Structure formats: C-alpha cells, structure tokens
C-alpha cells in the first residue's frame, strides 16, 4: 500500500512547486503506475525552449526499485537513444536509492541534458557526433528540439525538414554524391551507417568507402 501513498505524495509535491516547471500526471486514472512527466530544456543548451515528455512506469517494488523512464519526445543526446528514447543514467539503474523521487529523477534528466556523458553513451552515433564536431552536434540537437519538443505547432513543418540536417550531415557532402546519380535517401542511410557527418575533400579513402557502400 505504501507505494500508492508515496506516488500520491509525490504528485502533490510536484503540484506544490510550480516554479520547477515539472509536470507529472497519470496516463489514465485507472492505473497509478503509469505516468507521464515533463520538464523544460535547460537554458543555454541546444535543448532550450523544448518541452520534453518522459514515459514513467512505476514497478511493484517502488520505491525500492527505480522507476522505468524513457523519453517520449525524440531527443538528440549521447545518453538517450535517438530511436527508442531509452535513457542511460546511473540513478535509474544501480545508483537508485529509495530517497530519490520521480520529481528528483526528472530534475536529474534535465541535468543530463545540460551535461552529457559521451563516454558512457546510449546512442553511439550521436555520441560520436558530439565528440567529433560539437558545433554541428549542437545544431542538430537544436533542430530536433525545435522539431519534436516544441509542442504542437512544429508538427506542420516536420515534412519539410531536410533529412541531412536532421542527422547533422553536411549538405555539400550529400550533394556531391547526388551529383553522381545516387538517391538522397540512400546516401543518407549509408553516411549514417558509416557514422560520417562531413568529409575532408582530400580523404579519398573514405570517399571510396562511401562509394563502395552505395554501390552494394
């Protein structure tokens, strides 16, 4: 019974502190173990201005076992899977302690957006991008924030977004291969698979590798 009581108490605590800009609500009134939480992207990061929604499943053993959290909102971040929204954060795993609340866990996620841990990545492709070219990474992460985390109004523009921008791939690189007669989708797929965002014009070896992959 303590679990229900604790969850209700946690809801109350979130409601009593509107300044934290954190929301926590049940998905349906019938099930108190499935919640959605949300928080705002930390300022002065590429996530600024976004509202990030997190799916929360509270296990039977809560609070002795950590809640299962994953991002519903697509996030471009080294420790968050760009596909599934799975999160790599120690306090949600072995460093969990019963004193941590859903609210404090959401705040930790906010802090994770602020300071990524690229050496312990969830999404290797994103982490590589982060380590190799921070500026380009920030651009992509900001684009994703604008596209996916900005509430309903961004949805309309989603169709027009260039796939190359979406994965932070250098436009000129894509154009170069497009001029050789390859399909854009295919080029992007290959470049993503190879983890390439841009290319040194003198690097013939890599260029050949891309060609090889494209011709497969």
């Amino acid at each position, binding site marked *: 019974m303590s679990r229900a*009581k604790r969850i209700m108490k946690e809801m109350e605590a979130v409601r009593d502190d509107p300044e934290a800009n954190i929301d926590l609500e049940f998905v349906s009134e019938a099930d108190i173990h499935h919640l959605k939480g949300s928080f705002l992207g930390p300022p002065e990061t590429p996530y600024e201005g976004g509202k990030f929604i997190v799916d929360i499943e509270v296990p039977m053993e809560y*609070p002795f076992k950590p809640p299962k959290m994953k991002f519903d909102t697509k996030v471009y971040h080294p420790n968050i899977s760009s596909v599934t929204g799975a999160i790599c954060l120690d306090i949600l795993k072995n460093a969990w302690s*019963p004193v941590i609340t859903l609210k404090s866990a959401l705040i930790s996620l906010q802090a994770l957006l602020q300071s990524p841990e690229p050496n312990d990545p969830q999404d290797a492709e994103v982490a590589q991008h982060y380590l190799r070219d921070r500026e380009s990474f920030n651009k992509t992460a900001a684009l994703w924030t604008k596209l996916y985390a900005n509430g309903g109004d961004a949805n309309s523009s989603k169709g027009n977004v260039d796939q190359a921008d979406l994965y932070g791939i250098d436009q000129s690189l894509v154009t170069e291969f497009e001029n050789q007669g390859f399909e854009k989708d295919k080029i992007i797929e290959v470049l993503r698979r190879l983890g390439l965002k841009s290319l040194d014009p003198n690097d013939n070896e890599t260029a050949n590798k891309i060609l090889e992959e494209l011709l497969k």
Partner: protein
Amino acid sequence: MANDEDYQYSSSDDDFPEQQYYEPLEHRDITNNILDDYEYLNYDTDSLESFNSDVDIVDGMAVSHVTNPNKKRSIEGAMVNLKYECFTTQDIFNNMLEKVDRLQPMFSIPREDIILLLQKYGWDEDRLLEDWTNKMDGLLIEAGIHINNEQKELPKSQRGISNRDFFTCPICCEDQIKETYSLECGHEYCISCYRHYIEDRLNKGNIITCMSCSLALKNTDIDELMNGPSSEKLMHSSIKSFVQKHNENYRWCPFTDCKCIVHIQDTTEFVEYIRLHYSPYVLCNESHRFCFSCSFEMHSPADCEITSSWIKKAKKESDNLNWVLSHTKECPKCSVNIEKNGGCNHMICSSCKYEFCWICNSDWKPHGSSFYQCTMYNNDELKTQTVIEDVSKTLKRYTFFYRMFNEHEVSAKLDWQLGQTVGNKIKSLQEKMGVSWIEGQFLTESLKILNEGRTALKWSFAVVFYSDSSHNLTKIFVDNQALLANSVEDLSALLQIKSPETIMEKKVEFYNKAGYVENRTYALMECGRELISKGIVKITN
C-alpha cells in the same frame, strides 16, 4: 498408431523392455581385445610413429587395476603440474574473517569496520594497507565508516532503532510510524522501509549505505535490523562479485547447483597447455571435472576452440534439427514407437523382439562382435552426389554428427540416472551377498569411467566434424572412436544388470571392461590432440 498401446512406456527402474536381453551380447575376452587393437592400431606405422607408441603404452597398461592413480592423471590431460585449490564461498568467508582478525591489531578499529574497508577494496589486503598508511581518516570517511564533518545539515543521532510517535517516513509516506532506524547521520526512516531496502541490496554484494548519504551500515547493524544473520548473505554476495571480478584466477564450477570455486594462482602455465593442445581440466570438491579455460564440462578430445564453435553451431542449427532428434524412434521392423530409457544403444523391440542399434537403426548382429560401423560417416555414398547438392550435403553431414553428439549426450544423461540406482545396487550387494562396502565400489568406479568415456565419445564427434576426412589420421581417429563406442556400450550393458548374484559373478568382467574403456578414452583423447596439433582440424562455420 494401432500398436502404440502394445508398447509399455516404462517408468520404474525395474522395467527396461529394450534391454532385457543383455546376456546374448558377445563379450570377447579382454586379452583378445587388446591384441586385436594392438594389431589394428599398428596397421599404419609409417606416418604415426609417435601416436602408436602412445597407444602401445596405454594398451600395455590395460591389465592394470582400474584405480591406478597414474592413469587417472593421464585422463585429466597428461599434464600433471596444474596447481589449483577448490573453495566454497564459506571457505572464502572464513578466510576473510581470519584476514580481518590478522589486520585488527594493526588497524585498531572494530572488526566490523575492517570488513567494510576490505569490502571497499575488493578484499585486496595490500592495496588497503597502502592506502591506510597514506590517508587513514580520509579512508574512514570514504568507506562510510566515519561521518563526514562537513555535512552537518541534520542533527546527529544515535545509531540504531528508535521508538517514535507519529513519525512520517519519507520513503513509504506512512504516518504514525512507531519504530524507526537511523545511523549517526540522522537520516531516519521507518524500520520496514529499511528492511525492504536492505533485502534488495543484499544480493548485490556492495556496501550498503544509508539511503541518503554514504554512511555505511555495518554487518552488526544489518543483523540488528533484519533480526538475523543477513549480513552473511551480504558477505557471500560480496564474495560472488569478487570471484566475478577476478575471473582470471577464479572460476565457478559450471555444474548445476555446485557451489565450488576453483582458484588457480598462476595462469601463465596455460600458455604451455594451449601450445600442446591440452585443456586445463580441474576437479572441484564435488568431483565435477571441468575445463578452467572455457568453463565447460570435460570436452576432450575436442579443444576449447572446437568446443565453443561446436556449441555455437549447435545453437544456430538446432532449430532446424530438433525434429530429427525427437526422443522416440520407430522400430525399424514393426514401427512401434520406442522410447529409450537406458544408456545402452542395444535396443530390443518389446513388441517384435527385433534387435537393433539405436544409432544407426539397423540390425544389432554386426555390432556385437566387432566395433561399431555406425559411428563412421559413410563418405562414399555422398561422393556420387552432384555439386548442386553441396549445401544440403554440408547440412546432412552436420546433422549426422550433431545427431551422434546428441545421442551420446542423451545416453550420458540416462547413464547418470543409472548411477542413481548404483548406490542401491551396492546396498543390495551388501545385504544379499555380504559384500563389503569397499568391495562394492567397483560399480561406482565403472560408472565414473563409463561417464568419462561417453563424454569423450560425444565430443569426438565435434572433432571429426571439423576434421579433414581425407586425412589418414582422421581415419585412425574415427576407428579409435568406434573402438571406444563399442567398449562403452559393452560397459553400459554390464551396468544394466540388476541381480546382485550376476553382478558379483561378473566382477572381473566389470574390471576388465572398465579398464578397457578407460584406455580407449585416453587413446582417443591423445589421438584427437595429435589431430588438432597437426592442423588437420579446421574450424569453419
């Protein structure tokens, strides 16, 4: 099937319809066997000098007693110098406590605190001592033994259980809590939440700290809270994680429910082992023999590499093959469904009395007097096939060997079940025949040898699968395999005997057959090693 009901699925040990005729098996005199083998193995002398000399020696030992200690070692892999110790977690735990007692006068802090420090240092005494001399107080704070004086936000409290009125626990949010627990840090929670929390952490093997800060719970605190010796459980899981972390030198016995840990101090010898294509087998205190390097059961004549790729392949292909390997077979004569319930492959259909071999489904008669032809894969038959059928040929070849492997595994399991009854047999020998316990041990010994023989036989099919079948040595290996298969079946049939009188009458036969199986096992292992070291085995997946 109309005939199904005719067949009795036996459930009790006394009812082996297929094996009721063990007597007609033609058992040759052991000396004849040796001579036969000797000649047989010498039929090709030019390329295999060394190999034959090995066999020579082994066969020379055939007359020696079953429990010859020198020969035991040879089965373990001929290299005798592997030094290892076998522990249980309890042994290690006791060693730890001794260690604590040794350190206590040096540290002059309570024993419980030393345990915490050792846990923090993964039981590495030297590293702990080094750090201890460098930064004594810092270490005590780091390990959560002393409170960090900088965090003073909470009023200091007594370590232990307190009785309160109307306390609201921040974990479960229940009010009117009567009993609470806290450490000196003052982070206070209700006792049931604390118990829950500890219960959850006991299996992780790490130091359990206060839920809010890094102050550690000592073993005495845990026991006080849990009303019992729970800290011991923590110690055991701490040891478990220690073993996992030091998997270079420690290995859990891979056998189900076995709690032994084998420790090898110096693993540099392994290089030599691997160079000579031996596997480092160890024997745990429960008499389970396993390979220290790959944590598999004894897999000779296969080496670790063959073993792992065979297992991988088996996992990959088993879905396709399961239908082939269903547990029942139809009698080749009358099509009654037959379930195999003993280790022996000599089957006698309960309905039509047809005697056949479980492995090759053909008449038993040619099996009894000579070695098994059915363990040899008939390559000639396939030569007639066209290149287009190559793929199905490979699969067919694999299927054949996998089936052989599987049959022997199943047989080994059934033999093991048989082993459960051996104890009873010895008892009945004692009661009915007045045989002393020690004298009855030849049954246990024979069973052990039978198991080893089967295991070697089983793995030998993995070796043959990966071997170049055109090579002469492979042929010799296969012949050796057949000889072992034959001797194993003989011994297995002997062990099926129920009546104590017959068992005692055949005691010499037990010795002879068991000794023979042992020698054949060794010969097959050596031959396999030769095969591997000559590079005739090629692993392709």
